[in-house]
């Protein structure tokens, strides 16, 4: 997918810059098909960096996770830049956050990696549930190739990649400072087939489906914490006065949580799918986010994460906004 030497060389060079604090990339995980975020402060740290079809994490969360604590009197904040290795979808998150003024463009240095699809950990775990040793996966001729105990496995991509990758419209990062490799142009279009099919169901069917899903939610907030767009200093569920969503886990509160989180992502979610990947219960959160993505595109002609110049969806309005539903 990407020349590893070039990746490491680029990152090492970036670390020699005076204005870069550290670079976040990927390194091999500790078991099976895992990959872990990796932080390089000095050139030696970069030798661990990899890029493979297993690199599912959206690393744009890390600039938003910086903790800014009170400093001793004469100490100044280390406001140097952070380098991030981004795939196509990840770069959209960076664009969206910058658009919303969540962070400054100058604060990040984006190392763009044109991506041809990543492996869905659930799918590969289902097929190789007892793989202990860490495995390297490569993409060759439309197949994911890897070696386990001397045996070579070559599995067609479509069987293992995320659904999001199948309709990816932006395999090449939309924003980058450095691009590692040639641009990939995609003819895929997200047609929202599943969303449209679900919309046709009756109210009763729809509620039964989501009721079952919401009842399974354990309110661990993994979806919220992994999402680069969820960076509120004080999340609505952590508000105590007034308390909007109670901490009890029952259908009512779980529904309120999931509805409101999906709502807060309207016009902001860029579809990286991390929320669904990390949910321990496997709740299909991307279905909710996709629905709003489709509607926002259709009604307001707005797509999140594409242009730095656009204004955020709910920060603007148009006199032509829908009015049929208003009495």
């Amino acid at each position, binding site marked *: 997918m990407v020349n590893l030497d070039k990746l490491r060389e680029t990152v090492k060079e970036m670390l020699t810059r005076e204005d870069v604090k550290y670079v976040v990339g990927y390194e091999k995980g500790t078991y099976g098909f895992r990959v872990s975020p990796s932080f390089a402060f000095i050139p030696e740290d970069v030798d661990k960096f990899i890029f493979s079809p297993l690199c599912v994490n959206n690393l744009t969360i890390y600039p938003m996770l910086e903790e800014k604590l009170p400093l001793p009197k004469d100490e100044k904040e280390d406001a140097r830049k952070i380098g991030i290795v981004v795939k196509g979808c990840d770069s959209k998150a960076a664009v969206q956050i910058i658009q919303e003024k969540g962070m400054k463009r100058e604060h990040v240095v984006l190392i763009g990696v044109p991506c041809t699809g990543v492996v869905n950990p659930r799918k590969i775990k289902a097929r190789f549930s007892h793989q202990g040793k860490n495995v390297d996966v490569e993409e060759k001729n439309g197949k994911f190739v890897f070696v386990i105990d001397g045996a070579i496995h070559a599995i067609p991509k479509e069987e293992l990649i995320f659904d999001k990758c199948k309709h990816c419209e932006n395999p090449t990062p939309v924003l980058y400072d450095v691009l590692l490799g040639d641009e990939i142009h995609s003819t895929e279009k997200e047609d929202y087939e599943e969303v449209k099919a*679900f*919309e046709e169901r009756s*109210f*009763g*069917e*729809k*509620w*039964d*489906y*989501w*009721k079952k899903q*919401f009842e399974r939610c354990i309110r661990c907030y993994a979806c919220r914490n992994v999402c680069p767009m969820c960076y509120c200093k004080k999340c*609505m569920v952590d508000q105590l006065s007034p308390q*909007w969503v109670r901490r009890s886990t*029952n*259908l*009512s*509160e779980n*529904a*309120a949580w999931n*509805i*409101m989180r*999906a*709502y807060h992502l*309207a*016009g902001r979610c860029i579809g990286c799918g991390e929320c669904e990947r990390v949910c321990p219960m496997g709740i299909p959160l991307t279905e*909710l986010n996709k*629905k*709003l993505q489709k*509607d*926002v595109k259709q*009604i*307001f002609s707005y797509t999140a994460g594409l242009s730095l110049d656009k204004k955020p*969806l*709910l920060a603007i*309005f148009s*006199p032509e*906004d*829908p*009015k049929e*539903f*208003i*009495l």
Partner: protein
Amino acid sequence: MTEFEPNIVAFLCNWCSYAGADLAGTSRLKYPPNVKVIRVMCSGRVNPMFVVNALQQGADGVLIGGCHPGDCHYVQGNYFARRRMAILKKLLEYIGIDSRRVRMAWVSAAEGNKFADVIKTVTEDVKQIGPMQHFRRSNEW
């Protein structure tokens, strides 16, 4: 058997729709008593969290009343509210909640009649849809 009487929570903006409701009252206009009014300064203040919370706490329908486009006391609040509610309704529909439960109306301070009509319409519609049970808080511990 007693007929189902819906609980409608109405968020009315202070300058237009609340005044309109006031006018309906002083004019002694008749409209269904199911509505419970919460006065907000502007419809743009209404956070969709309020709507969801109202539905959780026992509201069968929620109405957001604002000034007519162009007449908002705070210039643009009602435009933002319009966008928000359009999105919220779509989301609720996708979950399986009839979006006729969440309504918006532009009612000016002079439109006492319209306010009464709006309440009649919303109450009738929600009566037809039925009680909101989906994610109502049981408050039984």
